[in-house]
């Protein structure tokens, strides 16, 4: 096999900007943050989030969905169905044994966990649901997709915290490159907007405290950024070997030409101050793609809006990128969806390549003077994007970087 590239033939997105790829793309192009007060967090010091609007499980998933699916699974199913249909594939006729599923998920069914734990404490063991375990374990995102899509090949969940979605796509590419699968439905899903999780992130100082102006709180690369806004959602991509996709006449949206991973081995939550781990992952992805940082036209940054991440990431990108490269962080609009972020942003990077348009970074009003990058702000920018990079860095120092090329 000479061409080891992997084609992206389908996209599915469920985000705070709406249900579906079109709604999400239009939302990120508008550049208005979805940050808002969230009823699920009422009474907590940080009570804002970027929530997915309008998901009705009985209508969008299955009439019994609320009984068996935690929200992170519901989001995954909706996104995956869209991606498979978008790829022009029909699970009723495909050779399911050759179809794999790889889903990134950092937390799993934390809302279910909290609800049932409360029942245990308040009403005793008899009140705990028999469905607790199958609803909360994170591997159910992939397990339910297998059942929903009749995908009978390798089926797994990757957990590298906020890099999980990127790790899933890199893992999926390997399953195609080594011939294990012909099709992989890969992405990420997360629904971590729960009182305990948000409180945990708040207690460690990771979240923005700008609760009085929730739509201005997520502001990647801005001088006044003070933390991330938690989001929820799912991004799913259908991947195939490029030659196979072309042979069946599928539309190749973009090609995944490189994926790199690394560990900081530095600190539980803080990035390596020199960004050495992030740089290693970027260099690995670029090396696999056979290109240099100077060739990259555009980067969808991890860009969480935390003081530390954005500073370190910007410094590394400043050393790596050439003139003319643009950078954006779609977390300004969508918040930080943790284990789903890498996949949602990969899908948006594919759209940048396909549509020659870079979405703006929401709330970037006064760029941090230490960030010496062309960060797109205010309005979308028309740009021919032939090579683009998508960064994801997780707590624990786990890094995943993807490089996409035009078909």
């Amino acid at each position, binding site marked *: 096999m000479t061409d080891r590239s992997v084609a992206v033939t389908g996209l599915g997105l469920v985000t705070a900007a709406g249900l579906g790829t079109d709604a999400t793309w239009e939302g990120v192009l508008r550049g208005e943050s979805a940050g808002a007060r969230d009823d699920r967090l009422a009474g907590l010091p940080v009570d804002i989030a970027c929530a997915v609007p309008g998901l009705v499980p009985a209508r969008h998933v299955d009439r*019994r969905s609320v009984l068996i699916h935690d929200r992170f699974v519901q989001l995954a199913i909706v996104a995956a169905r869209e991606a498979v249909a978008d790829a022009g594939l029909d699970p009723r006729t495909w050779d399911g044994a050759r179809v794999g599923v790889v889903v990134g998920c950092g937390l799993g069914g934390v809302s279910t966990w909290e609800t049932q734990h409360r029942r245990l404490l308040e009403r005793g063991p008899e*009140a705990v649901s*028999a469905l607790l375990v199958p609803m909360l374990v994170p591997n159910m995102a992939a397990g339910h997709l297998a059942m929903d899509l009749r995908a009978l090949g390798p089926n797994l969940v990757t957990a590298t915290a906020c890099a999980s979605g990127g790790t899933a796509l890199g893992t999926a590419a390997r399953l195609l490159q080594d011939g294990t699968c012909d099709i992989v439905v890969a992405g990420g899903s997360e629904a971590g907007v729960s009182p305990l999780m948000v409180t945990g992130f708040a207690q460690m100082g990771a979240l923005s405290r700008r609760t009085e102006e929730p739509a201005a709180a997520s502001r990647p690369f801005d001088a006044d950024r003070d933390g991330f806004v938690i989001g929820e959602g799912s991004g799913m991509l259908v991947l195939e070997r490029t030659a196979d996709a072309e042979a069946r006449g599928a539309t190749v949206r973009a090609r995944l030409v490189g994926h790199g991973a690394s560990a900081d081995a530095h600190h539980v939550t803080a990035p390596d101050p020199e960004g050495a781990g992030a740089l290693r992952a970027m260099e690995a992805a670029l090396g696999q793609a056979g290109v240099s940082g100077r060739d990259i036209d555009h980067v969808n940054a991890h860009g969480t809006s935390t003081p530390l991440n954005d500073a370190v990431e910007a410094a590394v990108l400043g050393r790596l990128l050439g003139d003319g490269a643009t950078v954006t962080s779609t977390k300004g609009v969508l918040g930080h969806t943790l284990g789903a972020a890498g996949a949602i942003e990969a899908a948006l990077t594919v759209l940048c390549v396909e549509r020659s348009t870079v979405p703006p970074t929401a709330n970037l009003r006064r760029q941090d003077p230490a960030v010496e990058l062309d960060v797109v702000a205010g309005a979308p920018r028309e740009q021919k994007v032939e090579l683009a990079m998508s960064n994801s860095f997780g707590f624990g120092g786990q890094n995943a970087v993807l490089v996409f090329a035009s078909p």
Partner: protein
Amino acid sequence: MSTTYDRLVDLLVDGFAVDRAAIRPDVTFEELEMDSLFLVELLLVIQSEFGVKISDDAAVPTDTIAHAVALVDNETAAPAS
């Protein structure tokens, strides 16, 4: 029909998204697409709703609604002391 039956029908409709029109005393849980995991959950809910003690293997998917009603009625009819 007994009160137990009516309350059980409400539980199935409200808690398990079963179609009310499909429920009859002689229909089985299997026919209502209630698999073994759902049935274990239903027995837990029944115990909590009716205040009775039923073992988690007292009903299987091939049992009927009438069987479940009898389980509850036998328990509630038992002497309290």
